[in-house]
């Protein structure tokens, strides 16, 4: 059983005449522990796909099976619990709460979980140290650099030790050096901690950090191939 299985997945926006087809039937499976890039130009449907896979949005056709259970079988509150416990999100625009510290942002998912309060700080601290931001733990997020902000967001994504980490253009708002550091962190999460990573990007250089690239265009899969010369973010960084 694959972790994620989609069959003929479709997403149509709007009513009747003014319909826009964002996904015109895509089929693939992602195994536990994989690092997959979903790549395509803007408007290709890659963000829509991520939102459906991350249970942020609902598809209009086909099937989506997560951990052997079809997405239609989940109630809204169950989906909230899955997002909380099994999924971690990293967004292009960081989406950190303003005027709060790195630690406060990091423990936010724990507030909506069953993790007892006394474990919040140690878990938050561990996640922050894992992304190399230990020296900024009590800084307000507004005062961090772009790369630091994204690493704070990564700490938040992994604080609940999720099954899958979704990263939507995580380097899109960063300079190349900060982008490399973020990619190194993401690769480490996949290799050292065994998190499944699904990365959305329009740059092939970023996509090549994964094991496998699914290319989408106009809502359909163009190609789905393993990466032969996989990029190592730490090597690039050391140069």
């Amino acid at each position, binding site marked *: 059983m694959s972790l994620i299985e989609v069959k003929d997945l479709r997403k149509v926006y709007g009513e009747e005449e003014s319909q826009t087809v964002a996904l015109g039937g895509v089929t693939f499976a992602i195994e536990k522990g994989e690092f997959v890039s979903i790549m395509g130009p803007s408007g290709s449907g890659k963000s829509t796909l991520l*939102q459906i896979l*991350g249970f*942020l*949005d609902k598809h209009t056709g086909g099937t989506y099976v997560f951990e052997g259970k079809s997405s239609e079988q989940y109630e*809204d*509150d169950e989906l*909230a*619990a899955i*997002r*909380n*416990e099994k999924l971690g*999100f990293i*967004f292009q625009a960081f*989406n950190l*709460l*303003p*005027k*709060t510290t790195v630690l406060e942002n990091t423990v*936010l*998912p724990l*507030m*909506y*979980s069953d993790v007892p309060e006394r474990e919040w700080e140690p878990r938050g601290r561990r996640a922050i140290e894992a992304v190399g931001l230990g020296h900024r733990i009590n800084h307000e997020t507004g005062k961090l650099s772009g790369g630091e902000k994204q690493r704070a967001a990564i700490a*938040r994504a992994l604080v*609940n030790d999720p099954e899958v980490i979704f990263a939507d253009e995580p380097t899109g708002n960063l300079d190349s050096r900060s982008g490399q550091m973020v990619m190194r962190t993401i690769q480490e999460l996949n290799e050292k901690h065994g998190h499944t990573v699904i990365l959305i990007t329009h740059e092939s250089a970023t996509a090549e950090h994964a094991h496998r690239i699914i290319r989408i265009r106009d809502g359909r899969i163009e190609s789905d191939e393993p990466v032969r010369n996989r990029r190592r973010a730490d090597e690039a960084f050391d140069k």
Partner: protein
Amino acid sequence: MRYKYAIRSAIQGVARHKSRSALTILGIVIGVASIILIQSVGSGAQGLILDQVQGLGSLTVTIMPGRPQSGPADGANSFSDSIKDREVEAIRNTANVPGLTNVTPTLFIPGSTAYGTETYEGTIYGTAPGFASILSLEVAEGDFITDQDVDARASVAVIGHTVREELFGESDALGQRIRIGNRSFRVVGILEEKASALFVEPDKVVIVPYTAAQSYLSGSDYYNMVFGQAVSEDQLDAVQADIERTIRDLHDITDPEKDDFDVGTQKELAAQIGTITDILTYLLSSVAAISLVVGGIGIMNIMLVSVTERTREIGLRKALGARSGDVLSQFLIEAVILTSVGGIIGIIAGAVFSLLAAFALSTFVGLNWSFSFPVTAAVIGIGTSAAVGLIFGLYPASQAAKKSPMEALRYE
């Protein structure tokens, strides 16, 4: 368990937008403060008036011409001539009203009193010696008017402290002749200074025998009010009933509804005044309560703006695992925190303003004003503010809870 975190998120939400939060609660602050102020001033005024009524003495009975007043005064009563000598004689008769003493027929005549070129505008009281004991007036110089003065229609007058100062300044007043209306009166007594009681300001009175007032000043044969005193408190009800029966017999009245006079006691008067000031206080409080509703609408308005503005935050929270219920309670609790804090500030502000008002009234106006903190109003004030937050926060909070995590993230 989760509510604890909803409360924490709500506190953070309020704290992150301090100046907006402060502006939001202003309406509630003003509403609650005015309710507290009105309640406090209302009970102070009531205390003041009741003090004056009590100054009348618990044994005092008043007989006024005209229908008993059940609602607002209708003016006609003041001009009623149903109480004349015949009625006064009848109630003086101990065979009719055994427990009544000090029967004091009284006229109130607005007019001016003059000495040389000085004049004093005020009320002239045509009354009897009993007036002094009923209002506890003390004579500082000379004597009060006597029964002989009344019988002889003597042109003598007793004046209050202020009247004496206005007319005579530093010079001697006793024995001097003053002009009231067109007649000359001799000053036989000057009253001690005394705080006002029952709307009579002893310092500002000019007192003459009622017989002289009728003959020389009013030219009429009826009285505006008759005072009397019951011999003891247990006789008060009997005295009141006896007076009513006596005058009804005299006037051939069988139906008490058709009474053309009104017998009152201090107890009744106190109850009436209490009712009137209560009604006024509640009326004004309900006007102030409208501002709470306005404040609530203000909160709803700003919360709606805030929900739109924080769409990203809401989406983020949902993406991180917040359920709709979590978001709903967070925003609802934010609204309740805002209005409750507004209520508490309002109570403090209201108490401070009432205290200042009490201080000003007693220091600068010279009233015997006592400050009281309306505890009930304070409790109701906090409860109402919280309820306002709950009611007016519900719509914005449900709007927030409805947002889909995806739409929220897309919002720029």
